[in-house]
């Protein structure tokens, strides 16, 4: 449904996206995953036709975005990263405007608006001005305007960013309810991509790094993770001992907290054996081991594995 072929985008001399190809099949929910500044938004903007690519092509539902932009855009709903709506219009008026711009009028328009108002839980605020709504509701109106008229393809840029935890859960619920539609969303949260999407496209610094299912990524991530170790003793020596342990890519002291001892964060491709060796290594040197805790891998750890397997410059 969405086919992106060899997309490259330059802004002046800066290359924001470099030869990225991917596709999203009919009815598939796909995530574009990458850290901030990796080119996700640029890619999405090329898919929506906001930008045209410097090289390569995009087609939506078989229609070439460069060749027939209006026909392609008619099949597409877009939620930008910063949801910006006209504050002076009411929710219903906003959605009616979008429906009209998409070519609907009269009864079909009213039906399309009523449909998304109900689907996105906006009935209670439908007559309120958008400018008076909370961030969570505004995000829902943003999703609703993308859904008006049932476009074949939805493109959602960071749909949960900036929402509080309750709003995030609600938003994810709405996104899960989009089954049957073709959705491409971007996120920098690995768990969100794995939980919502059937396919994950990973980009970094404008390049395609991997394209996989959540299960496939899970396999690649197996054993990868982070350990938090709390030790009482001389911090610099502990750090060098931990960093020298086989299987540890990186060991860094974490900011002090109210608890006793110094915390260290260990990152490595396979920390299982490390976890077992930490006890003897610390106690053997006469220091006190207070805590060893495994944490779920984050996007950063995934990048340690996929992008920078040598482990240098893990911080971005």
């Amino acid at each position, binding site marked *: 449904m969405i086919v992106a072929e060899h997309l490259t*985008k330059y802004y002046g001399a800066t290359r924001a996206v470099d030869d990225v190809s991917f596709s999203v099949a009919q009815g598939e929910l796909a995530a574009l995953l990458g850290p901030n500044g990796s080119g996700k938004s640029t890619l999405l903007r090329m898919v929506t*036709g*906001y930008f045209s690519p410097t090289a390569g092509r995009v087609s939506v539902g078989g229609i070439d975005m460069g060749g027939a932009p209006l026909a392609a855009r*008619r099949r597409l709903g877009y939620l*930008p990263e910063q949801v910006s*709506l*006209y504050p*002076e219009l009411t929710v219903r008026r906003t959605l009616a*405007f979008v429906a009209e711009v*998409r070519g609907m009028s009269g009864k079909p328009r009213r039906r399309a608006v009523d449909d998304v108002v109900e689907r996105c839980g906006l009935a209670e605020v439908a007559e309120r001005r958008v400018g008076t709504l909370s961030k969570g509701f505004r995000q829902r109106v943003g999703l609703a305007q993308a859904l008006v008229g049932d476009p074949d393809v939805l493109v959602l840029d960071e749909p949960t960013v900036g929402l509080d935890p309750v709003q995030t859960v609600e938003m994810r619920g709405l996104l899960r309810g989009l089954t049957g539609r073709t959705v491409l969303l971007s996120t920098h949260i690995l768990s969100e991509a794995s939980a919502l999407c059937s396919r994950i496209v990973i980009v970094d610094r404008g390049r395609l790094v991997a394209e996989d299912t959540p299960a496939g990524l899970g396999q690649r991530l197996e054993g990868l993770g982070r350990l938090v170790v709390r030790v009482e003793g001389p911090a610099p020596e502990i750090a060098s001992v931990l960093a020298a342990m086989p299987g540890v890519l990186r060991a860094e002291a974490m900011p002090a907290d109210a608890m006793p001892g110094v915390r260290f964060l260990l990152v490595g491709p396979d920390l299982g054996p490390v976890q077992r060796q930490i006890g003897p290594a610390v106690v053997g040197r006469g220091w006190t081991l207070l805590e060893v805790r495994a944490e779920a891998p984050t996007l950063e750890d995934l990048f340690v594995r996929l992008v920078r397997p040598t482990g240098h410059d893990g911080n971005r």
Partner: protein
Amino acid sequence: MRSFVALFRKELRSYFGSPLVYLVAAAFLAYTGYYFHSDLLYFVTFGFGVNIMENFWQLLFIDIRLVLILAVPLLTMRLLAEERRLGTLELLLTYPLRDGAIVAAKLGACLVVIALLLAGTLAYPVWVYRIQPFALSPLVAGYVGLLLFAGTCASYGLFISSLTDSQVLAGFLTALPLLLLWLLSWNEAATAGTTLPLMRALSLFNHFQPFSVGLIEARDVFYFLFSAGAFVWGTLRVLEARQWLGRR
């Protein structure tokens, strides 16, 4: 076409949904009404022996045009600057609308508002006509001139509004050069001989003046239509600049 109409209607609704347009209309009618009153009084008092109506129209239209120079920037400053500041421009540009349709809808709505303002000033000649009927053709020429003049100012304002996300800046940068272009050939004696023809060719005053005495000349119509077209073209290029600037 339907998308264009939808945006055009939304633009009109935003104009009439905000207090600004009513304030501008009130000030516009108050100022033009004042000019009408004082210009008429002037000719009634000092106009012996001259063609009163012809000279009166000339003075009145030139005064109305000065009020337009101050009113139009207030109407154009929000057109694209506000979309930029709010961030709504990005969504607008991804709807099934051509850039040209967006520019046309915005400019069209602004011109409708300006036409309504000018229609309000028709009350003055109607009032005079009831007392003393006069030839209508100079009046028609004057209003054609005002519409063309306002169209050029509005296109220029739209262009400036596309360059910034600050409405205040857009308003200032629209009003100041319009005044300058108006004044360019104000004092011809103070202008160097070689630059005078150029000044005259550029001056808004020189191209508007024939309309105010009842003359519709092709080169003046062309001047206004061409400059309006140039600013619309410029606005489209600014919208296109997102391609290589990479921001909204």
